[in-house]
């Protein structure tokens, strides 16, 4: 039994950390906020050079063939500097989605695009009603002959301003509705991962969800920026208006999108959680440092128990979150039977702990912590912006409970 990262994992952390620091650390996010995404692009390129986007791509497709647990240090480091962009969605969602459910052709094309940094993905999931429940999806895909017609409006797309392509779940009125019986089984050749054993009868609103991928510059795609208090997220509203796609843009089985999503979204939440603990650790390190040096009443404020014990409280939560997040990533990577409960309980716990840490960080910095110049607020805003990313804390808690059989 050994509950620490391996030497290789720690080495990857160090090279990522060094790379991010070379690019300016938090300045990458600040430049991005100021409307200058070049620094982010350069950083992304460097991370690609380090192999970050290849880590969890199967060896058969030119990747390193590692898993979530190996990505933990990467996301801890990107979280620490609040890296904007779509690394998370690309590596922790698109890669497993394509690797597990894509056709052989898609794996060749898309995974190598991810590996070489040419392709990055954002998740265009949330409908304008705010729901991220796939059951509430209103956007549609219809087949007409060989052509798939996509109509959807998706909002609060994280990284939507930056991705080169979108992953879009839509309601697919399948074969029966247009008399076309070709419905997709044919082209998604590589069915070894289709995992029909997962099955469970799909019911009611959950029927007929299909995942498409769409290039950003495809005809009929409009991307509009959304204003957010976390301007590092590149939030966008993406409209797909009479977009015509070929079969190659369907990922996995036509109509089988729900199970695919439930599977891969756990990889994503495990990654989000890892980012959170990285960010939280930064916040606590910096407030600890501040408490040692800031003097009031002739004392470093860290000598006052109101300050020191509050830092300890948050630190204990960080320790707890870190344990849960490491385990969750291990559980996902090893397919442990408790992985669903592990992921969602880590996600809900880390979410709330991050908010508290970021909020207390401002408080303990006093007035200065409330200024735009200090970084404190960026962490709180990120904490709040990630809070409801693809689920609320209550959703995560209910998913945990349900996974535990309650």
């Amino acid at each position, binding site marked *: 039994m050994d509950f620490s990262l391996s030497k290789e994992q720690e080495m990857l952390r160090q090279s990522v950390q060094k790379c991010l620091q070379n690019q300016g650390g938090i300045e990458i996010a600040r430049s991005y906020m100021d409307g200058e995404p070049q620094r982010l692009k350069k950083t992304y390129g460097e991370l690609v050079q380090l192999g970050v986007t290849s880590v969890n791509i199967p060896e058969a497709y030119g990747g390193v063939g590692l898993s979530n647990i190996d990505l933990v240090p990467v996301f801890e480091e990107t979280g620490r500097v609040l890296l904007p962009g779509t690394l998370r969605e690309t590596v922790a969602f698109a890669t497993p989605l394509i690797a597990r459910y894509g056709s052989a052709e898609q794996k060749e094309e898309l995974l190598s695009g991810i590996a070489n940094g040419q392709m990055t993905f954002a998740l265009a999931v949330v409908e304008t009603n705010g729901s991220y429940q796939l059951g509430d999806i209103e956007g549609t895909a219809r087949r007409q002959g060989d052509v798939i017609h996509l109509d959807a409006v998706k909002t609060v797309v994280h990284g939507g301003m930056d991705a080169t392509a979108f992953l879009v779940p839509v309601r697919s009125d399948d074969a029966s509705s247009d008399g076309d019986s070709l419905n997709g089984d044919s082209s998604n050749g590589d069915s070894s991962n289709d995992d029909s054993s997962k099955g469970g009868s799909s019911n009611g609103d959950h029927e007929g969800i299909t995942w498409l991928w769409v290039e950003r510059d495809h005809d009929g795609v409009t991307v509009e920026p959304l204003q957010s*208090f976390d301007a590092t997220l590149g939030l966008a509203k993406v409209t797909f208006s009479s977009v015509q796609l070929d079969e190659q843009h369907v990922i996995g089985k036509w109509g089988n999108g729900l199970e695919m999503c439930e599977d891969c979204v756990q990889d994503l939440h495990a990654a989000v959680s890892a980012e959170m603990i990285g960010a939280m650790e930064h916040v606590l390190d910096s407030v600890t440092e501040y408490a040692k040096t800031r003097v009031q009443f002739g004392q470093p404020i860290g000598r006052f128990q109101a300050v020191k014990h509050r830092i300890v409280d948050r630190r204990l939560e960080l320790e707890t979150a870190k344990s849960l997040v490491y385990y969750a990533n291990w559980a996902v990577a090893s397919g442990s039977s408790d992985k669903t409960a592990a992921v969602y309980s880590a996600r809900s716990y880390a979410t709330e702990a991050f908010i508290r840490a970021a909020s207390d960080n401002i408080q303990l910095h006093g007035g200065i912590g409330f200024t735009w110049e200090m970084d404190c607020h960026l962490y*709180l805003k990120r904490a709040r912006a990630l809070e*409801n990313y693809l689920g609320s804390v209550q959703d995560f808690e209910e998913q945990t409970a349900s996974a535990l059989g309650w």
Partner: protein
Amino acid sequence: MDFSLTSAEREFQHALRDWLEQNLPAGWKGSRSLPKTDPERTQFLRDWQRRLYDGGWAGVAWPKEYGGRGATLLEEVIYQEEMVRVKAPPVINIIGIGMIGPTLIQIGTEAQKRRYVHKILSGEEIWCQGYSEPGAGSDLAAIQTHAVKQGDKWIINGQKVWTSYAHIADRCFLLARTDRSGAKHDGMTAFLIDMHQPGVETRPIHQMSDHYDFNEIFFTDAVAYEEDIVGEVGEGWKVAVTLLMHERVGVARQVFSLQRDFNDLVGFSKTLTRQGVRLVENPVVKKRLVDYYARSRGALLTYYRHLTQTMKTGHPGVEGSMDKLLCSELGKDMLGYAVSLQGAHSPLWHEDAYVNSSWQDGYLESLGLTIAGGTTEIQKNVVAERVLGLPKDIKH
């Protein structure tokens, strides 16, 4: 125990309501947003204060002879409640009206009264208050800004921070060190400084909420004269305390805002849904809302209990620290939750906000309310030491 208003109080309330109904700035009721940029915003607020002044609603607690209404404490509270209720624009000279004017009336020289008091109420001269410094936040007595006497002038050098309205203020009530030899609390003097002089430079502070409500002020050989001193040289701390005692209604605005925010939160929880269920029917949300109901009602009722205390003793006590703690901590919690409940849309801001950007703005501002005016940590010390008689904290 009686929660009803007297007929005089009710009359006061109705008169104010009627006046507000007639006089809120055109278009205000719809958007309730200030002009985005200076100087439009400043002009808008100056106009509003002038209108209040003309209507006799600028300084309700001021003595009648100085243009006020001589309102009772409770009327003053009713005034705050109504202003919050209709979401009236802020009063730009609130520092002058709330504290500096009353202080000058109480302990200013005749010349100071003649020179300043009237223009405070009318809004002709806007005031700010120079207390905090970079090295003197919670530890206010540690200020370093100093004034040195040269002939009939005092030469002032130093830096202030967290000064509201300084960028538009005409004058500043400034606390400066005039003697470094004694204990920290000694050797301070209170000055009334002209802000339109070469030695004074203000720089706005960009807050995390993207607002600019505070400023830094840099004094470089700024000048004050003998007649600008309030009280005696070396008695600045005492003057500052006198000034604070004029803050009779304390956190009234905050406590009424909390009630309004709570009601609005319940309001949108009745329409927004999560997984097809109205938020207000979601048991987990409902539990949280009931908690806010109890705590916001509790903060309001506690405020009233303390007010009863103030009315009986004739002066506000340290209970104000309790009110501030209850309100500011609850506000941060509740507004955070109000943002959170907006789900996927919660990070959206400004024009793209889902329910209303004031929730996001309010939440971000709430992070400052547990800091400004005495941090939560300091307030707890005050309550511990001055209400409960627990031992003094470590110092020096």
